[in-house]
């Protein structure tokens, strides 16, 4: 039985199409990363799976039931947004409150201990640091012993140590057989956790593949240089685009070359004595990675220096 089934789902907000005919199945024990820029429709998708909204078209099933029925949500764990904890309630009280909704919750003391929040139990949530709030939010998703958890940007704004600790907690849950669907706009986070990656943009699923396959598609470096020749057809260049549409006064064109191996490309260019200048090398940003995925559907690379 699939844990989450999304079938042909469309959801609009007024004129904005947040999700456009999206289908997605998540099986038991999977750890799926939902990757996309802000406003891509990730959170809308999660709100449909958690029964907060209903789709305009298509069906959503959670653990075999309609997520809008309370009974279907017994096996579901969700994180509140960090800013959304009731500020006057104490940490222990919030855990008691959320845990009280489930037939077999994790004892509050045990959960707080696992997330290093024992000393904070008597503090009001408004007094917690950003990292502590995040930890509490993830802890709350696990209090009901869920079979599946939805994590919306679980570590946004955290420092490295705090992020690692949360990642460990998520991995431990998954290692015990739990199913995870997490969203992020950090490639790094999805890379650290997910086995399967779904890329979503403008309400459409752009890619759905194993982490390795996705990384091979997006792990490009960007080599920017000025050269009189058009280098887009050079061996090792996956894709190219012109930075400035026309040649400069001296005849050189500023161009971006996307390549899996920037070092090899530059060595080749130097060995072939290509006359370039103002060399820059950067990692492809996530937006560029998305552009790469979209363009992957277009046969062959972009033609020449014009788009």
């Amino acid at each position, binding site marked *: 039985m699939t844990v989450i089934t999304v079938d042909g789902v469309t959801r609009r*907000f007024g004129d904005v199409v*947040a999700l456009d005919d999206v289908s997605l199945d998540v099986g*038991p024990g999977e750890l799926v990363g939902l990757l996309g820029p802000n*406003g891509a*429709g990730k*959170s*809308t998708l999660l*709100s449909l799976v*958690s*029964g*907060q*909204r*209903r789709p305009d078209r298509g069906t959503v099933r959670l*653990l075999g*039931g309609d997520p809008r029925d*309370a*009974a*279907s*949500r*017994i*096996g*579901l764990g*969700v*994180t*509140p*947004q960090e*800013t*959304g*904890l*009731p500020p*006057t*309630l104490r940490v222990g*009280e919030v855990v008691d*409150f*959320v845990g*009280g*909704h*489930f*037939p077999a919750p*994790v004892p509050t003391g045990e959960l707080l201990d696992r997330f290093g929040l024992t000393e904070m139990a008597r503090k*009001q949530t408004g007094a917690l640091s950003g990292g502590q709030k995040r930890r509490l939010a993830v802890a*709350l998703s*696990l209090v*009901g*012993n*869920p*079979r599946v958890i939805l994590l919306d940007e679980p570590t946004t704004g955290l420092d490295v140590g705090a992020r690692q600790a949360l990642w460990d*907690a998520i991995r*431990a*849950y998954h*290692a*015990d*057989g*739990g199913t995870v669907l997490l969203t992020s706009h950090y490639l790094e986070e999805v890379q650290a956790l997910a086995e399967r990656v779904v890329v979503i943009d403008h309400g459409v699923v752009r890619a759905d593949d194993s982490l390795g396959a996705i990384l091979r598609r997006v792990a490009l470096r960007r080599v920017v240089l000025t050269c009189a020749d058009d280098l887009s057809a050079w061996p090792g260049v996956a894709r190219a685009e012109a930075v400035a549409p026309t040649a400069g006064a001296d005849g050189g064109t500023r161009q971006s070359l996307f390549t899996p191996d920037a070092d090899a490309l530059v060595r080749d260019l130097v060995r072939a004595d290509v006359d370039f200048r103002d060399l820059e090398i950067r990692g492809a940003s996530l937006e560029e990675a998305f552009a790469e995925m979209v363009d992957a559907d277009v046969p062959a690379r972009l033609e020449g220096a014009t788009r």
Partner: protein
Amino acid sequence: MTTANPASATPRVVSPLRLAWLHLKFQFLETVRIPMAVIGNAVFPALAMVFFVVPQDSVAGNPQFATMAVAGLAMFAVCSASLFTYGLGVAEDRALPFDPFVRSLPAGPGPRMVARVGNGAIFTLVGLLPLIAVAWLFTSAAVTATQLAAGVGMILLASVPFVLLGMAVGYSLTAKAALPVVQVVLFPLAFAGGLFLPPMMFPAWLDTLSQLTPTRAARDLLVQALTGAPANPWAWPVLVGWTAVFAALAAWAYRRDEGRRFR
């Protein structure tokens, strides 16, 4: 994680009664942690009594009139607390990011609504204590213990339609829109219902109109409970009718609400 055990999970929702109790407990905690809200709610009706009733000897000195004045102000306190707490409070809660989270927990809307009503009732009673104290100390208002108990029971019953109306407003409007709507609804209803001026002073046409309002029905029934003066026989049907209408509105507003947050 030590106990993610997919095989043993059986879908069994926690009983609605326990959920309602859980929500009541935490709503109560959230409310009392902001003492000003509690104090303001408790002080206003007593102050109105001190300023508007106590100085008027003709009212304060007459047990019948004084008791009616207390009934009117008590009813106003209940209406105002219900409409503001639920109309504005619910609209504000919906704008908070914790609200969609709570909606994703395995519980239907029932327990949360019941808890809101219960929490409202608790603070209504707390708010009435100073009013009763002022009336007892400074006016000739007089009730027997039985009448007082009947009055408290009646006022809790009579608060239900106003709580439901508040929820209907709160679940259909944003906080900014809810505030003026609550004010526009509350004051005409309170005036037409005879909560400020006794309806004996109304012209005949206004009195007829007044009989159709939920506030008047509630006030008459409360006066009946406190003084034994018989209420209009239509008071119960009017109050129950409005309760049904407001309940339907509140349920409809809750169902179509998906939280105010966009995505």
